[in-house]
C-alpha cells in the first residue's frame, strides 16, 4: 500500500541506505581514506547545491584521510525526515546540515553527539568556542545548556523597499520606516487603487505555513514579547498582550488600512509582486538578498523590520550536527570535516555566495569579506540588524505547536476570524500538544 508514507519512506530508504553502505564498504577496501556521509538541504536548488558540492570536493582534494560523500536531501523538512529514517535504519549519516529549530528533536532522541565532546579533545571550552558566534545563534544550538550544533548559514527577516515608489510617494528611500507608525504612514501613501481594486499594496508578507510564523515572531519581538519560552521547550506565549498586539497590527494593516492584501500570499508570490511593482515593500529573509539584487529592475533599499517597543528579529538557518551510531574513526573524520567547513574562511565564502550571513564574527574581519561588505550596503544592514536578533522559535514538536498560531494568523489575515477568537484557541491547542513534554519535564528548570 503506497499510501503509507512512513512505510514508504522507510522501504525506500532501506534499500538506498543498504546500497550506499555496500558501496562504501566496497570502496573503503581499495582506498585508505575514511568515507563519511553528509546530508545537506538547500532552500533554493541549483546554484547553492552545486556550490556545496564544490566545497566538499575542495575538502576531499586537500587531504587524504577523509572522503566526504555529500548528498543533497531536499528541503529543510525533507532533510530532517531522511536523516531520521537513516538513523532508524541503523545507518545514520555522519554529518548533516540541519534546520536550527529541529536540533533539539535529535537531542531528545539521543541521536547526535554534543559538540563539547569534540571540543574537549582539542582542549577548547564551549564558551570560548561560542564567543566567536553571534549571540543570537547560541540558543538554537544549545539544548539544556549543552552545545549540539555549529551554525553554518543564517538569516533574519528584513524589510525590502522599492526606492522608486518611495520617491514618487514623497517618502525618503534612504530612511525606510523604522517603527510601526511610520510603516502605516508610508504604507498608506504607497497604495495605489483603481476604483475599488488595489493595484499596488504598501506591504506584503509571506503567509504560508512556517514562513508566516517566522516573520510574525519578528513582530512579536518588536512588540516587546517572545511567543515561546526560549529556555524551555514546553511553553508558548500565544495568549499574551504582546502576541495579540502583533496580530492586531497585522489585522489593522489589512482590514483597517488596506496596506496589505487579505490573502495567504506565499514567499514566491511576495517577491514576484515586489519585482512587478505590485507591492512597494516586503519582508522576507536576508537569504533572499542575492535574489533581489539580481531581479529588481528598480532601485531598492533595505531596512530593519520596523519596531514597536524595540527592534527584534528571529534568526533562521541551519547548523552542522554529528550523529551518534557511527564508528570512532568516522566520528573523528566527521569532526575534521565540520571544523573545516565552519572555519571563518569557509563560512565567509559561503556567505558571499549565498547571501546568508556568516555566523562567525571573525569571518567579517577577513579582507575579502570587508571588501564585499563595503560594496554591498544591503548586506551591511542585514548584519547590523543581527545585534537585535534572537533565537528561532523552537519547542517540543516545533512544527505541530507552530501550526495553531499559523492557522490563527491566516484566519485573521483572511478575515475569517478576529484576534479575540483565534488567540485563546491557538493557546489551548498548543498547550494540549505540549502536555506530554510538561508531564515528563516539569521538574526541569530553565537553562
Amino acid at each position, binding site marked *: 500500500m503506497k499510501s*503509507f*508514507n*512512513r512505510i514508504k519512506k522507510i522501504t525506500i530508504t532501506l534499500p538506498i541506505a543498504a546500497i550506499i553502505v555496500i558501496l562504501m564498504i566496497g570502496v573503503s577496501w581499495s582506498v585508505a581514506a575514511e568515507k563519511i556521509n553528509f546530508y545537506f538541504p538547500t532552500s533554493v536548488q541549483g546554484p547553492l547545491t552545486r556550490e556545496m558540492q564544490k566545497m566538499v570536493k575542495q575538502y576531499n582534494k586537500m587531504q587524504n584521510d577523509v572522503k566526504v560523500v555529500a548528498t543533497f536531501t531536499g528541503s529543510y523538512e525533507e532533510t530532517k525526515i531522511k536523516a531520521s529514517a537513516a538513523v532508524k535504519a541503523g545507518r545514520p549519516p555522519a554529518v548533516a546540515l540541519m534546520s536550527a529549530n529541529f536540533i533539539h528533536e535529535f537531542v531528545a532522541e539521543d541521536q547526535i553527539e554534543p559538540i563539547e565532546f569534540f571540543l574537549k579533545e582539542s582542549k577548547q571550552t564551549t564558551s570560548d568556542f561560542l564567543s566567536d558566534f553571534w549571540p543570537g545563534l547560541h540558543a538554537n544550538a544549545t539544548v539544556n545548556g549543552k552545545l549540539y550544533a555549529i551554525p553554518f548559514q543564517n538569516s533574519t527577516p528584513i524589510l525590502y523597499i522599492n526606492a522608486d515608489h518611495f520617491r514618487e510617494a514623497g517618502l525618503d528611500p534612504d530612511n525606510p520606516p523604522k517603527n510601526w507608525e511610520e510603516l502605516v504612514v508610508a504604507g498608506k501613501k504607497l497604495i495605489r487603487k483603481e476604483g475599488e481594486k488595489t493595484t499596488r499594496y504598501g506591504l506584503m508578507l509571506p503567509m504560508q505555513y512556517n514562513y508566516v510564523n517566522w516573520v510574525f515572531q519578528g513582530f512579536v519581538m518588536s512588540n516587546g514579547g517572545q511567543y515561546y519560552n526560549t529556555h524551555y521547550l514546553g511553553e508558548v506565549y500565544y495568549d499574551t498582550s504582546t502576541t495579540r498586539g502583533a496580530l492586531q497590527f497585522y489585522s489593522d494593516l489589512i482590514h483597517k488600512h488596506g496596506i496589505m492584501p487579505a490573502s495567504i500570499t506565499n514567499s514566491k508570490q511576495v517577491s514576484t509582486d515586489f519585482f512587478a511593482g505590485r507591492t512597494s515593500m516586503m519582508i522576507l529573509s536576508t537569504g533572499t538578498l542575492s535574489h533581489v539584487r539580481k531581479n529588481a529592475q528598480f532601485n531598492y533599499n533595505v531596512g530593519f523590520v520596523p519596531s514597536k517597543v524595540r527592534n527584534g528579529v528571529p534568526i533562521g538557518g541551519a547548523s552542522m550536527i554529528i550523529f551518534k551510531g557511527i564508528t570512532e574513526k568516522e566520528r573523528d573524520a566527521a569532526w575534521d570535516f565540520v571544523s573545516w567547513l565552519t572555519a571563518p574562511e569557509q563560512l565567509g565564502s559561503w556567505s558571499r555566495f549565498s547571501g546568508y550571513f556568516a555566523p562567525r564574527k571573525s569571518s567579517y574581519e577577513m579582507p575579502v569579506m570587508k571588501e564585499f561588505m563595503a560594496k554591498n550596503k544591503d548586506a551591511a544592514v542585514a548584519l547590523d540588524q543581527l545585534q537585535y536578533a534572537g533565537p528561532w522559535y523552537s519547542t517540543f514538536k516545533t512544527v505541530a505547536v507552530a501550526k495553531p498560531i499559523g492557522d490563527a494568523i491566516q*484566519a485573521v489575515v483572511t478575515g475569517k476570524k478576529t484576534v479575540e477568537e483565534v488567540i485563546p484557541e491557538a493557546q489551548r491547542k498548543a498547550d494540549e500538544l505540549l502536555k506530554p513534554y510538561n508531564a515528563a519535564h516539569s521538574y526541569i528548570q530553565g537553562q
Partner: protein
Amino acid sequence: MMVDACHLWLAMRKVKYMADNVTARGKKRLLKPFYNAGYIKAWLYLAPALLFLILFTYYPMVQVLWDSFFLKEYGAEKKLFVAFDNYRRLFADEDFITAVKNNLIYAIGTVIPSIVIGFGFALSLTQSSRFKNCIRSLLFFPTLVPLVAAAALWIFIYFPGIGLLDYYLAKLGIQSTDWLGDPDIALYSLMILTIWKNAGFYMLFFIAGLQGIGEEYYEAASLEGAGWWQKLRYVTLPLLAPTSAFVFVIALIHVFTHVDHVIVMTLGGPMGSTNLVLYYIYQNAHEFNDLAKATTATVLSVMVLLAISFFSIRTMERGIHYES
C-alpha cells in the same frame, strides 16, 4: 506516475485473476489439495510476488495495526499499551476531523467530475481516426505528468494576478483571485488540478470499455427505436457498469493516496483548508513527531482502502457475468 500505472495494471490483473478463479473455475478450485502439480506450480510462480507483498505490504499493515495500540510518551523509556486511546486522541483532534471532511469533499468533488468528464471524452473519441487519436493523446497527456510537476506547473497557473488563469479571467473582467491563498477556494483549486490530471486517465479505461461493447447492440437498439440518449441510457451505461465500477474504485484510491500537490502547493493550508488525510498522516509522522497518531490514522485509511478493494473485487466479479 509510471510506477502508479504499473501498480494499477498489476492490481487489475490481480483482481481479475482472483475473480476468474472464483467464478469461472468455481470456488472449489482454490481449495484443491496440494498434491496437484499444477497447483504447486502456480504457487511457485506466485511466490516471489507474494514474498514481496508479505514483506512490504501485509507485514507492515499488521505492524501498523499493532502499533496503533501503543504510545511512547515523551521521555518514556518504552512504548505503553494504551488500547484505544490513540483512536480517542485522533477523533478528538480537530485537524483530523477537518482532514477527513476535506477528503470527503475532495473525493466527491474530484471522483464524480473526473469520471463524468473522462466518460464524456471517451464517448466523443471512441472511433479512432488520426484526428481523434491526436486529441486522445492530448487529453491523456496530464496523466503522464508527475503530480509533483503538475502541481509546480499549476502554481503558476493559479498565481494571483499574473497567473494564466487570472490573466484570461481579467480579459473577461473578472478580478484577480487568490486561488491557493483563500481558505474558501484553495481546496477547490486543488480539485480542479486533480480533475485535469485524472480525467484523461479514466478516459482510457472508458475507451477500452466502449470498444468492448459490440456494435450489434447499438444496431439492435437503433432498429428497436432508440435515439442517442436512449442508447446511452439503456445500452452503453449498463454494459459499461463493470468498467465504471473499476474506474470509480481507482479514482477513490487516487483520492486517498495522492497528496503530492498538497505538499507542493499549499502544505495543507491556509488554515488547514487543504489538509487531506494522507497529508495529515505525513505531518504527524514527520513534522509533529506524533507517530502514534499517524499510525492510528493509517490504520483507519487502510481499512477504508481495504473496503474499497473488496467492493471492487465484487463488482468485477459481477462484471464478468456480463461477458456471456
